[in-house]
């Protein structure tokens, strides 16, 4: 009779990435660098679709309020932080990233990490939405930092010449603005170095994304939503190259050994929109238990344009004007259909985010068009990325269950 009975612990349904340790380290370092830049009066806050390579090439530190919103959501304090903004008069209908940000500036001592480090400039690009301008105006009132708007009018179809010219002038004004505000200069040599680093990170990142075409998929939604943080916030720095190389190595090793992100992959779905940060693990891991994996999404694929060519600024204009959210509904439908076909997906889940009108508008129509073109079913669930007060789990559950029953 054996003295010790060894019971093998059941393997978790969700396999954590080893490269997450490195991710945490660089995100911590990034935060420290932000504080240092702020102390040296050299910090700008930027929107997620801003051509960050330019401030980076001019030696300006950057922090991302949208990423801070994701942190607020993950720490489940969205209702509190949004509430601080609502107390001073902002509507509950306003973007919850904006409310978290305005709320944290209002009450830093009651906010995660005591809020983002104080900015000396606010750089907004409206290629992701029009709210960013008013939001940064509000933060400007609170902090005194000046706002720079890079205006990128929406595009339907090909970008016309006059549009390119207009955005190009905006880039010139940006360089002037940063020069004046931070007493900094932009050299072609430095811009080339930064663009090369940015392109390298993006190339490594998109290779990891593309590896999810394999079955089983080496990454699930939550993996990508966490791993995208450096490519969103630190494009153009060498700090992140190591991480994306390590991630790609791990992803390739998973593919080679047929190891999936989840233990038992049965159904492959597309995710559309920002995730519910306040429930990200519970949500995706809960579905993983039922064999549902998300090999692709429309969000993390948004950072995929590499700045290249003889005229780097022309490339900047093209990449930042043509982001997913700055284009018409047709382009969004095309992208979803392309992902469903390329990644061999069985259906799609669209998250209608109450605060993000720009991303969510048109989902009813696109759902119909995507099903018509691909023949796969989809469902829309409603909620919010940060504000968990508008996330009704029972209603979401019924919709998802009904979708999954279509595959039985």
């Amino acid at each position, binding site marked *: 009779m054996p003295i010790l009975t060894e019971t093998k612990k059941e393997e978790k349904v969700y396999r954590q990435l080893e490269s997450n340790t490195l991710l945490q380290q660089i995100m911590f370092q990034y935060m420290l660098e932000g504080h240092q830049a702020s102390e040296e009066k050299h910090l700008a806050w930027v929107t997620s679709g801003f051509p960050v390579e330019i401030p980076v090439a001019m030696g300006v530190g950057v922090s991302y309020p949208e990423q801070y919103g994701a942190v607020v959501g993950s720490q489940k304090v969205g209702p509190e932080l949004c509430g601080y903004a609502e107390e001073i008069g902002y509507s509950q209908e306003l973007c919850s990233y904006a409310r978290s940000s305005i709320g944290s500036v209002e009450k830093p001592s009651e906010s995660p990490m005591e809020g983002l480090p104080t900015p000396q400039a606010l750089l907004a690009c409206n290629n992701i939405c029009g709210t960013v301008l008013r939001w940064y105006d509000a933060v400007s009132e609170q902090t005194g930092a000046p706002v720079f708007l890079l205006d990128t009018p929406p595009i339907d179809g090909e970008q016309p010449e006059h549009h390119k010219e207009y955005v190009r002038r905006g880039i010139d004004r940006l360089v002037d603005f940063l020069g004046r505000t931070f007493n900094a200069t932009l050299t072609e040599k430095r811009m080339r170095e930064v663009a090369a680093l940015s392109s390298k990170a993006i190339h490594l990142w998109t290779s990891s994304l593309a590896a999810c075409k394999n079955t089983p998929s080496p990454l699930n939604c939550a993996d990508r939503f966490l791993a995208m943080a450096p490519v969103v916030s630190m494009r153009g720095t060498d700090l992140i190259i190591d991480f994306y190389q390590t991630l790609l190595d791990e992803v390739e090793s998973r593919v080679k050994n047929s190891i999936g992100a989840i233990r038992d992959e049965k159904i492959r779905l597309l995710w559309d929109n920002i995730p519910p940060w306040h429930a990200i693990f519970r949500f995706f891991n809960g579905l993983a238990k039922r064999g549902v994996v998300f090999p692709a999404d429309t969000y993390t694929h948004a950072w995929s344009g590499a700045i290249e060519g003889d005229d780097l600024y022309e490339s900047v204009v093209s990449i930042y004007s043509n982001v997913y959210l700055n284009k018409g509904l047709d382009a969004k439908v095309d992208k979803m259909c392309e992902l469903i076909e390329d990644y061999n997906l069985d259906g799609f889940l669209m998250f209608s985010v109450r605060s993000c009108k720009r991303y969510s508008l048109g989902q009813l129509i696109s759902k119909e068009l995507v099903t018509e073109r691909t023949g796969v*079913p989809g*469902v829309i669930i409603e909620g919010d990325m940060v504000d968990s007060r508008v996330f*009704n789990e029972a*209603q979401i559950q*019924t*919709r998802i269950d*009904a979708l999954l*029953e*279509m595959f*039985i």
Partner: protein
Amino acid sequence: MGKYGIGIDIGSTTAKGVLLDNTLKIISDFIMPTGASGSRAVEKIMDEIASSSKLKLKGIPIISTGYGRTRVENAEQSVTEITCHSVGIHSLNPDIRLLIDVGGQDSKVIRIGQDGRPVDFELNDKCSAGTGRFLEVMAGVLGVSIDELGPLALKSLSPATISSTCTVFAESEVVGHIGAGKDPADIAAGVHASMAAKIASLSKRVGTVRPVCITGGVALNPAFRYYISKQLGTELWIPEKPQFTGALGAAVIAIRGLSG
């Protein structure tokens, strides 16, 4: 395939149970208010089915559905009301491709595929104005029972306009009409027309395919049937017991399985 199957539908307002045999003949059914305890409702339904069918229910597979579906302890599996309604209606009338179910606290529009399974659906569970609750509130304001509200509305020759899309504000509007001395029949007609318009727009989102089937407790209301048919411009098909189709579908699944 088992000899019998039981479907239990725990809705927000009523709980329903259906016992079927394997020819899909209904042996017994029972409906009651869900009340505060879903599990007590399940117990009562099982007792009623057992006594009316004179069968021993032990060993008969149970499928649960409805908002309380996960809390039915003896169920083999819980299946959403979307799939159950679809399967239930298909077992009664395989030609139906569009189902509108108006329950106590939500409404749903389901496109049914050729095999009887849902292929698309839309739910309204954010706003009470498109649900049975809307009619209950309005019946209360007009001082009639819920069963009297539909027949009253059908007497109207000149329906009142209810412009609000919210139960609370529509209630104020109805109170205003009463104060202005409007005929209760006209007000009741306006209430039904307003609710039908809301549900018709949900239905148009999924795409109206004739004939349209209406289920749920509200399908028993003749004025609602009249106005929804007018709004959609189509004839309706209504099962004999429109409140039971979810439980019926669950019982069919209990016999044939989800993929059967």
